[in-house]
């Protein structure tokens, strides 16, 4: 088929199954937008390229497919840097397509030239710059395969303008059949043996279990063995919150029983997780009595932070299926469960209502979860509201919580929700956002309104950069340097802002109105909705393991250290 580089690009994207692109045109990428005009691929015109990148991430995580974003050269491309870093940290399969100045101009500081490949080297799994239009279909196919196989991640395809404009013949790309690592039977047997002889084992489950689609296998294995499960921030939903074997989230703001399970375990069965410092606390004090089985698709993660006694390189789904096949009987974990069950009863997640009579933010999130249910998709920004969204929304299925875990990118919630909703139009999508985060990316609500993407946004408006303020309360003697946002004084007025962006704007400031407001938001189906939940500024996220301390020092609430006290 005779075409141009640009025509080949769009045709190749169609052939690899791309159904939506989030992007913004500009000089260098303009040739690609011409064939896109006639394509069956939907293009969502964002208001800022960062939004395109996070939308691609949201789409990828909601659908399990590769998300695609597109930008022009120079500033368009550099605006994608944050989402690429975010996708790299959280192993999200996205392909970013950027325009570049013409080949002859590269390296001359041409108008809107930025060496985006070099800029993104440490935050992309791989990148291409195409110099021959005939290579475009193959490169697109390779980019999709690289992004979605092995440990998923972001791939950049940089396309000089003249390459897009040059005539070429289209040859359909061949999609490589992904090969999965073959498990070592010896390691699987060693793992099964450790599991069989342990008295205090725990499944330490990370985001890799969601990426590999292994929630079913996890449930089967957990039920077969009766071993307790903890799910990290990236793994919320990988195991049902309602399941009696589930102890909740471990880590800096994890539940007391989940943190205790890791600290007191004699065996960690770590699945698709990377011993992140937000989970381990001070590494030398992490799970001091535990042997470690570590299964991950990325060999470089095994023994990176904590030495594994048994390392298994493989897809989590295969690993768990193999373990299920060799493990035949349940070990007696009565003592272990008695201990953990006691903690679960004594230290459930809980919160106080603010003394000043304002709304408790945790209550708002709890009610959204209750009234919307587990079939919805929830996204979050970064801060206190994110932790409360991880703690107080009850997740029952994988892919229902989409947030920025590794990078902690403020502003993630709204564009990620837009991408998730574009990929899953039949699900309700709630962005649980902070009043600070929301002001970083809310312009994408204009995109949502114009494109008919009816997301729902709950702004947890505590008037502050709440998480930073919490640290100032705890570690800087209440010296609140530069954390007040003025959002309680309506700078801006979120309801008016929502209205101006083409959304329905609602406000709720009292407990008695919470349910009614949520139901009102749920009833809107033709437009995005923004609810300004005005909540107290002093609510804090508990439990907490202070940064730089060991997990044994977990505080259930300020000054209450259940594990530390238990040792005395």
């Amino acid at each position: 088929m005779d075409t141009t580089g640009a025509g080949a690009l769009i045709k190749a994207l169609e052939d690899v199954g791309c159904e939506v692109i989030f992007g913004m045109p500009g000089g260098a990428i303009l040739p690609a937008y011409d064939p896109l005009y006639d394509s069956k691929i939907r293009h969502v015109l964002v208001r800022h390229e960062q939004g395109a990148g996070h939308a691609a991430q949201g789409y990828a995580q909601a659908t399990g497919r590769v998300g695609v974003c597109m930008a022009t050269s120079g500033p368009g491309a550099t605006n994608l840097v944050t989402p690429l870093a975010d996708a790299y940290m959280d192993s999200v399969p996205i392909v970013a397509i950027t325009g570049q100045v013409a080949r002859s101009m590269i390296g001359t500081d041409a108008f809107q030239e930025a060496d985006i490949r070099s800029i993104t080297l440490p935050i992309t799994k791989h990148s291409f710059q195409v110099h021959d239009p005939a290579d475009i279909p193959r490169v697109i196919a390779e980019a999709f395969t690289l992004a979605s196989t092995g440990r998923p991640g972001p791939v950049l395809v940089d396309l000089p303008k003249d390459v897009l404009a040059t005539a070429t013949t289209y040859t359909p790309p061949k999609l490589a059949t992904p090969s999965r690592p073959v498990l070592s039977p010896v390691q699987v047997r060693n793992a099964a043996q450790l599991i069989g002889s342990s008295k205090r084992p725990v499944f330490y489950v990370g985001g890799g279990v969601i990426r590999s689609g292994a929630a079913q296998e996890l449930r089967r294995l957990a039920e077969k063995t009766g071993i307790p499960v903890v799910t990290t921030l990236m793994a919320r939903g990988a195991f049902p919150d309602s399941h009696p074997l589930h102890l909740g989230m471990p880590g800096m703001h994890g539940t007391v029983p989940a943190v205790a399970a890791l600290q007191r375990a004699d065996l960690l069965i770590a699945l698709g997780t990377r011993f992140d410092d937000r989970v381990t606390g001070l590494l030398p004090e992490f799970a001091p009595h535990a042997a470690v089985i570590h299964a991950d698709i990325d060999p470089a993660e095994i023994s990176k932070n904590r030495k594994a006694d048994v390392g298994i390189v493989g897809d989590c789904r295969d690993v768990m299926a193999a373990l299920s096949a060799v493990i035949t009987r349940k070990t007696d974990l009565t003592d272990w469960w008695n201990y953990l069950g006691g903690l679960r009863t004594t230290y459930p997640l809980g919160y106080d209502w603010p003394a000043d009579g304002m709304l408790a933010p945790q209550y708002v999130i709890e009610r959204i979860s209750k009234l919307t249910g587990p079939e919805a998709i929830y996204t979050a920004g970064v801060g206190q509201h994110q932790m409360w969204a991880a703690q107080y929304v009850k997740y029952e299925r994988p892919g229902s919580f989409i947030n920025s875990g590794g990078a902690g990118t403020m502003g993630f919630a709204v564009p990620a929700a837009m991408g998730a909703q574009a990929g899953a139009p039949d699900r309700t999508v709630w962005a649980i956002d902070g009043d600070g985060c929301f002001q970083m990316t809310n312009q994408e609500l204009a995109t949502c309104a114009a494109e008919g993407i009816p997301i729902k946004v709950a702004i947890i408006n505590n008037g502050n950069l709440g998480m930073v303020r919490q640290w100032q309360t705890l570690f800087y003697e209440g010296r609140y340097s530069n954390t007040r946002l003025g959002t309680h004084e309506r700078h801006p007025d979120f309801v008016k802002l929502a209205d101006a962006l083409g959304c329905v704007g609602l406000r709720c400031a009292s407990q008695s109105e919470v349910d009614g407001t949520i139901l009102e938001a749920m009833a809107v189906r033709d437009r995005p909705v923004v609810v300004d939940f005005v909540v107290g500024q002093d609510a804090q996220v508990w439990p907490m393991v202070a940064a730089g301390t060991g997990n044994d020092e977990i505080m259930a609430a300020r000054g209450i250290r259940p594990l530390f006290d238990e040792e005395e």
Partner: protein
Amino acid sequence: MTRHSLSLLLRNEPGALARIVVLFSSRGVDVESLSLAPAEQGDLSRLDVVVDLQAGRTVVQLIKQLGRIVDVKNVVDRTHDEVLELGA
């Protein structure tokens, strides 16, 4: 600090060397010496590099991180070969 001598085979693709060098700088690996030459086989290059690792970082970890770079075909730890050569 521990010193290691590595030998890499990489595809002769634009950006392959940059990706390796950036990995060294992002992960705090100190490069003592580095040399790149065409390899005998196919369209590959051979990179010989001597690195110093911070306390607590292992060469096995570094080799695995290098190994996940798409254009890196092979990484060999030659630290002990050198010791042998010196001893001979």
